[in-house]
């Protein structure tokens, strides 16, 4: 394939010198204003109900919003890197969409500043349990005596509390959580015994090698650095290829794809541990990174499908994207939705079956205080119903029906992130500040993404495999 063959494809869009770019004044050229308005509304809600209202709640809501946009960056990086790893061709025409989404990585870094400021200043309390574990040391020692007197009915436990520190640290985790589990079974708000408090504290102290304020911040900087480097490398190289049509750029992107995949996988995992798993500091699950990854893939595929269908319906990209590409995106979306269900089910089933209190506590919180409803909605809405909807070839090849499916799953993905974060705050009580944070962070994020989509070619016009992507038709 040489430059000459690219010309007929370019002529198809024909209207302008810049092929496959949203024409000036068209919907896509100014689509960014919609999320921008939403962001403004979000800011208002955040100020009224968060900053001037419940700041603690704002912390959780802001974290939820930030993780939501971050999963789109994850998904974008994943799709772009996967495409270069496999040297596939059908995804070439839609690759620009995840490229643009991923390129918002530095913006997410900026959006994360309020979160970090809030956590370090002590206004946002969601990590306090481990963040200040050292600071509370002295208070705790003093406090123990008081507890003994106060909870005199629980004399038995109090006596055991005298057990040596060494023993406490050896059996800390399991005994502490056995207590924890019993307490929670009685009523949702746990009344902790002094023994529980001591052992819980011992466990947290053990974990302070990882869950510590400085390390947490330094790691976050490192993650954002990696994501920014990866996202901008792929976005800029691909943009450069738009202009130069240089084949070697494809080789360059392919060459770095395997290492990028490793860097991406590890940073995603540890970011998920640092920001989401640590909300329940004694809880752990080895599959957690994979679960977050699966959700991210669902999010980006739903988003890419929505944008692709909209571009087709508005005639912005000529025939570069058509029902064949939407069909394939739909298959991948279906596949990753099943993968999400598989990983989420594995995590739940193994923890439920073993029934170890220190693990079960996480699902316990998601089955109490109204969250049972939300959990069931996710099971049905994020898997069971869309499974029967999207499995149909007919649905995947009808643009309006596929649009409904993708919007549905995008919504479910956001609900899924809400379910990771918010039960740690308390019972299910959606508040305006939750929407405010989502609108503010999400609106800013998508305003950038839509603005970028409005100005760059919507198809990587310099990619040597583009012609194959244009010719793509289903063999099955």
């Amino acid at each position, binding site marked *: *394939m040489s430059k000459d063959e690219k010309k007929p494809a370019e002529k198809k869009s024909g209207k302008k010198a810049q092929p496959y770019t949203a024409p000036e004044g068209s919907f896509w050229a100014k689509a960014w204003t919609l999320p921008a308005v939403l962001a403004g509304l979000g800011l208002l809600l955040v100020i009224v109900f968060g900053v001037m209202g419940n700041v603690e709640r704002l912390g959780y809501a802001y974290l939820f919003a930030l993780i939501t946009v971050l999963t789109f960056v994850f998904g974008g990086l994943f799709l772009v890197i996967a495409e270069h790893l496999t040297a596939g061709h059908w995804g070439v025409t839609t690759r620009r969409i995840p490229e643009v989404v991923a390129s918002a990585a530095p913006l997410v870094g900026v959006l994360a500043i309020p979160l970090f400021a809030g956590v370090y200043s002590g206004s946002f309390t969601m990590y306090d349990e481990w963040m200040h574990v050292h600071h509370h040391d002295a208070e705790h020692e003093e406090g123990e005596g008081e507890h003994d007197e106060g909870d005199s009915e629980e004399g038995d436990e109090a006596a055991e509390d005298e057990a040596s520190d060494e023993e406490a640290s050896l059996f800390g985790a*399991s005994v502490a959580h056995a207590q924890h589990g019993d307490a929670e079974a009685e009523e949702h708000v746990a009344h902790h015994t002094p023994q529980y408090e001591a052992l819980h504290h011992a466990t947290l102290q053990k974990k302070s090698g990882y869950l510590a304020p400085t390390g947490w911040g330094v790691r976050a900087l490192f993650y954002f650095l990696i994501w920014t480097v990866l996202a901008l490398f792929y976005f800029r190289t691909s943009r450069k290829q738009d202009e130069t049509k240089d084949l070697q750029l494809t080789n360059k992107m*392919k060459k770095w794809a*395997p290492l990028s995949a490793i860097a991406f996988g590890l940073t995603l995992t540890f970011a998920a541990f640092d920001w989401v798993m640590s909300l329940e500091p004694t809880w752990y699950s080895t599959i957690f990174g994979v679960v977050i990854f699966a959700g991210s893939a669902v999010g980006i595929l739903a988003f890419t499908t929505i944008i692709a269908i909209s571009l087709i319906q508005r005639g912005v990209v000529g025939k570069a994207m058509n029902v064949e590409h939407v069909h394939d995106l739909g298959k991948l979306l279906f596949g990753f939705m099943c993968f999400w269900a598989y990983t989420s089910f594995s995590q739940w089933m193994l923890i439920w079956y073993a029934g170890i209190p220190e693990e079960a506590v996480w699902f316990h919180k998601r089955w109490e205080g109204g969250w049972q409803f939300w959990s069931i909605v996710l099971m049905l809405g994020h898997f069971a119903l869309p499974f029967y909807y999207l499995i149909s070839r007919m649905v995947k090849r009808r643009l309006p029906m596929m649009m409904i499916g993708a919007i549905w799953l995008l919504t479910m993905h956001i609900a899924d992130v809400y379910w990771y974060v918010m039960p740690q705050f308390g019972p299910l009580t959606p508040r305006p500040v939750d929407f405010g944070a989502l609108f503010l962070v999400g609106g800013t994020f998508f305003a950038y993404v839509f603005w970028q989509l409005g100005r760059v070619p919507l198809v990587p016009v310099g990619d040597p495999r583009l012609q194959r992507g244009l*010719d793509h038709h289903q063999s099955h």
Partner: protein
Amino acid sequence: MASASAPIHELGERGLLPPGTTFNDITEAVCRVTEEKAPRGWWMLFLPSVGLLGLMVSCIVYLLSMGIGVWGNNTPAYWAWDITNFVWWIGIGHAGTLISAILFLFRQNWRTSINRFAEAMTVFAVLCAAIFPALHTGRPWFDYYLAPLPNQMGIWPNFKSPLMWDVFAVNTYLTISVIFWYVGLIPDLATLRDRSKSLRRKRIYGALALGWRGSHRHWQHYERAYLIFAAISTPLVLSVHSIVSFDFATSVMPGWHTTIFPPYFVAGAVFSGFALVLTLMLIVRSVFKMHSLVTLKHLDLMNKFMLGTGIMVGYAYAMEFFVAWYSGNPYESWVFFHNRLGFGYLDQEGNWGPLWWSYYAMVSCNVIAPQLFWFKKVRTSIPAMFIITIFINIGMWFERFVIIVTSLYRDFLPGSWGGFEATWVDIALYAGTFGLFFTLFLLFIRWVPMIAIAEVKATLPHAHPHHSDDDHADDHAAGLAEPAPAE
């Protein structure tokens, strides 16, 4: 103008098969293996295999007469080589299903040269695997209790047990794999029938080919059936080894109970399956001179696949370790640091767990060895890849051994600790299952087309609908730019 599907040489793309390969070349290369006399190399492999099969049968007879006490299993190592071998063999089978189902759905054409071969391995590997749990029940003549048969004795399988789920998962897997394999074989069996010189051959292959005449309608049905089987098999790739992992992970044993087990087992299974497919492929390719059908490009891609799955397995090892430390749970840390890594956490006598070396064997074979596949030189060097795949096979056996034995033999209570030593029956029975596997496999190679003739043909440039637009120019260009891969 070259068609869009033509390889872009600047990107390092090239056709799968050497330029100039014709349809007839493929038919000849594959069919002659079943038509000519077996080469000496085949006999040199077949006779020892039958010998090992004899060993297996003898071991089983001995075991049945003496009881499973002849194995090294003990209290607390209730599971040992038997379950290790079971999981290892089941894992070997996974490459076949992955190649025939998932890579088909992802339109990976290069799978065509290896899928038949790998699917056959799936079937034989599952048979080898099934032997171990069947014997491990202790009284195999009661194994029919596992089937949900309504019976007078009122014995029902415990559906809450993952071991029971395993029975269903493995049986489904075996059934679907056999059917899928057979459906894919039909057009090629018809080819063998049509080339038959003797009446007996014609009759047998004719019956097996189910009256296939290659009409347009036959192909249409065939393609549809193939797609449906691929779709049914895809969840099986995930489900079978996930359920095998549940056998361990639903327990509360440190080292067994961890949530990443299901995807980790699946990645490991595909990893080991690819390794054994490649080990065997390299031998068969040289014995039967299949170099033009299984090219260095195929081998290169398979090696990349192993590198990828090897890294995934490495990720799972890392997660287990990280969380054992991060959890602050003393029992988790004990298993990972004392029993496995041999670092910190000494016992009363100041020693590490005595089986620590098996963990190092696992990591060096599974994580370190495949890193050599980052280099194209290694990925395209036959001796190098042969050695690495053998390392991977060994490493994946050790992985299961590490999971099973090093979790069990020193757990919560020092008072109930034990040790483990394999007996000669353990070793001989495992070796014997290789006899069963290779006997079946070598018979398959001699009597069934070992490469999917019709599917490989479809990857040739002449098979493309638009080929006539550009055929001569393209062949010529390809010929100039890429000489046939030399070996």
